[in-house]
């Protein structure tokens, strides 16, 4: 009787033991994976493909020591017909250089033919969307830009009594708050404050508040559909100005990003496209434009060998 019981116990024991040994490796592996995952913060990347959605900034900043050469074109209204080659005869363009100081801070300068504007900006990531140990639902980026309109003054500006202060500089402050909701879809909102100049466009109010919304939807691994809209808060919109609405696609090919879009703005700096857009979608003042971005790594990160 005792022998049977003992035999049974031993048998049971071996059965158990076998199960434990077989499962041990998998269990232990899972346990290790879990331990590592718990202690790690995973930052969301590629919320947008580029540092611009269409006209305006996206929450993205350049990686450290990366130089981005950007060429942007906006043509004339498509509705201007074959005589103007559907707008391609009158182009405005901006040539710009952006640089990533570190992975969260970038700066940029540029010149655009529209109003002969020189511009410079500073952009810094304040929050980064993440999961894991540290959970952050959104990425937030601050943008501050200055643009100098170098057009010769209009008549009303050069009146002798208007003095030397012809208010050529415009300032822009933006807070971009964005979230990558899924691998395909990202959205951001952009509360914006603009102090506009008066040299080429009559702003009754120099301080203009606007709120923007922009999104990205990935169509394939390398192509995404983007949309962007800026709404100027009522009461401070300049006469003749309309809100800017743009749709486009981003095509990434490694070092280059091509952004092709339709928009109602010819301006390429924040002050111009947010507050001085004269085109209207419902009057077929839509125009074609593109941005080309080419990145260069100026300083390579050392990886230990």
């Amino acid at each position: 009787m005792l022998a049977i019981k003992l035999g049974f116990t031993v048998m049971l024991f071996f059965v158990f033991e076998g199960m434990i040994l077989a499962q041990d490796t998998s269990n232990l592996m899972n346990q290790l994976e879990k331990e590592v995952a718990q202690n790690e913060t995973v930052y969301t990347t590629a919320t947008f493909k580029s540092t611009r959605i269409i006209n305006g900034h996206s929450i993205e900043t350049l990686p450290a020591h990366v130089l981005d050469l950007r060429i942007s074109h906006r043509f004339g209204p498509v509705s201007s017909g074959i005589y103007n080659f559907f707008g391609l005869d009158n182009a405005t363009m901006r040539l710009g250089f952006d640089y990533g100081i570190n992975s969260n801070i970038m700066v940029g300068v540029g010149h655009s033919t529209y109003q002969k504007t020189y511009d410079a900006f500073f952009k810094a990531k304040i929050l980064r969307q993440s999961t894991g140990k540290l959970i952050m639902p959104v990425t937030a980026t601050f943008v501050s830009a200055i643009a100098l309109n170098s057009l010769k003054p209009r008549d009303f500006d050069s009146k002798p009594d208007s003095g030397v202060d012809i208010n050529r500089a415009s300032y822009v402050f933006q807070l971009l708050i964005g979230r990558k909701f899924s691998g395909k879809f990202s959205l951001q909102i952009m509360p914006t404050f603009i102090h506009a100049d008066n040299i080429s466009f009559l702003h009754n109010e120099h301080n203009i508040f606007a709120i923007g919304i922009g999104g990205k939807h990935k169509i394939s691994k390398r192509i995404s559909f983007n949309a962007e809209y800026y709404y100027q808060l009522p009461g401070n919109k300049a006469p003749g100005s309309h809100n800017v609405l743009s749709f486009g696609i981003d095509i990434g090919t490694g070092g280059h990003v091509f952004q092709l879009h339709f928009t109602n703005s010819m301006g390429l700096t924040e002050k111009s496209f947010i507050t001085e857009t004269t085109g209207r979608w419902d009057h077929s003042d839509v125009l074609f434009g593109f941005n080309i971005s080419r990145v260069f790594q100026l300083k390579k990160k050392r990886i230990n060998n």
Partner: protein
Amino acid sequence: MRKKIIYSAVFFLFTICVEGNCFSQEYFTKNGRISFFSKATLENITADNNQAISLLNTQTGELRFHVLINAFHFPKAMMEQHFNTDYMESEKYPSSKFKGTIAEINKVDFSKDGSYKVNVNGSLEIHGASKNITGVGAISIKDGKLSATSVFKIILKDYNIDIPSIVINNISQQIEIIVSCQYEKRMSN
């Protein structure tokens, strides 16, 4: 009767504990190093990952790896971005796994210094696709410390990683993978 049950239970638990200490021959690392290298006409591509998890059972020869794709670091930051978004789709497939065995693990004497050439085979999962691979590795024991290295090659096509035609000359189909791990013994319980 009751006493007997208690006795056998105690015996049972005791043996498990003893077994646990004596026979649990598991070695692990959380800082395994995986690098890869690809030679191409335009430029060589190299990346490094120091956060691979690996587990080695010296009794059964079972060998496991778990490698986070976004922990590969490149000298060029933009390359790292493209690697994650365009090629490896690391949000969809965050990790790569290996599940295999070291053949003839019994030949390796873990109790004294020495180094051994071993054959490894198993299934390697990258980018959501699995493929059986075999390779040669080396196990070395020095001052009671266990380390393992291996170099093997994979073909990108096997793992459905496509290269757009525009950069086809810049990226080689064949990638050399270099594995190097220093294992620690797992303290049971």
